[in-house]
């Protein structure tokens, strides 16, 4: 038996009522701060998006709605790497205007050797690769997500 999938629809501007009723941005209390901004094709902040971080290797998950300046913030620990891969978070982006969520990845800047050997990251051009590696920022990390434009974040299918 093969049933047809239920199609996706946008979260719309009011997702916070249902999807962000409680604080879920701390994946690992006491961990490092991972902050960033969600930006549209004009470089303007997306104030009504929601970002989810997933890690299958750490069994970790969290989400954070974006603020008026497009900011989001997580408290998390670096997940263990899967064999032959660099450590990473899988990142989901939901927003008004996205009829289906987009999928990207966050890699760590202090993992140069592992990043160079990662099968997904190493298959990308240097410019594309750069969109997926967070930047060191004090004790934490910065990771901006650009939906369009010359430095558009790489999204996966």
């Amino acid at each position, binding site marked *: 038996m093969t049933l047809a999938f239920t199609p996706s629809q946008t*979260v719309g501007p009011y*997702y916070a009522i249902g999807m962000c009723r409680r604080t879920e941005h701390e994946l690992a209390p006491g961990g490092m701060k991972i902050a960033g901004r969600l930006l549209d094709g004009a470089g303007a902040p997306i104030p009504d998006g929601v970002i989810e971080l997933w890690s299958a290797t750490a069994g970790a998950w969290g989400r954070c709605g974006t603020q008026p300046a497009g900011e989001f913030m997580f408290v998390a620990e670096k997940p263990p790497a899967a064999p032959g891969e660099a450590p990473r978070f899988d990142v989901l982006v939901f*927003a008004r205007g996205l009829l289906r969520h987009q999928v990207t990845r966050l890699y760590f800047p202090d993992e140069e050797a592992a990043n160079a050997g990662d099968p997904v990251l190493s298959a990308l051009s240097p410019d594309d690769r750069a969109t997926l590696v967070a930047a060191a920022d004090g004790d934490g990390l910065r990771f901006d997500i650009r939906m369009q434009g010359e430095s558009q974040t790489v999204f996966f299918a």
Partner: protein
Amino acid sequence: MTSLDSPIVLPDDPSLGPDVQLDYPGYRSTRLRVPKRPLVTLAEELHSLAGPVFGEDAIGELDHDLTRQHAGEPLGERIVVSGRLLDDDGRPLSGALIEVWQANAAGRYRHEVDDHPAPLDPNFSGAGRCLTGSDGSYRFVTVKPGAYPWGNHENAWRPAHIHFSVFGRAFTQRLVTQMYFPGDPLFPYDPIFNAVRDPKARELLVSQFDLETTTPEWALGFRFDIVLPATPLENER
């Protein structure tokens, strides 16, 4: 640019798939937000990553009943929305988190951004959550949401809908969608609904009136089954 002054007429093209057209031109908010560059394809095995597991502690006692979360009952037509969460092989997905949110019966969301001049209801927050049962079943009690205007185009109105957020077991089973009500006269005018180009796929977003789950002297029943892609993880549990 698609004109939306008249109903959207779509060809019944058998080549159309079940997917939503992400850059559907009638939906204005897509323009600066949908990635323009092609997606990078991941290897098949990376698609079966396990997702988060939510326990009973994620659910409050009245989270499934949106009509009993305040001192009084909300205004509007009381309804029961139920269905099953399945994978495309027909297997039930149990213990999965389903979250819903919606406008009240007057078409107003309890959200600071919603400035539609319709009344808020002090007895309605419009949010619910539950875990699916061992047979993949879920059930919410709520009131039927109202239609409401939005700024997408001249005289634009959203058909009545309930937002659903669903976690299956795996990364590829994450789904956010909207459930509509049968026979809504606004369907032909709504670019979000019509961004699903295949008419048969659009039908999967429309709940069905169900006499069996209609509770006598109390509430109408609507059924809405949700189907997610099967994952190899299924066989491991």
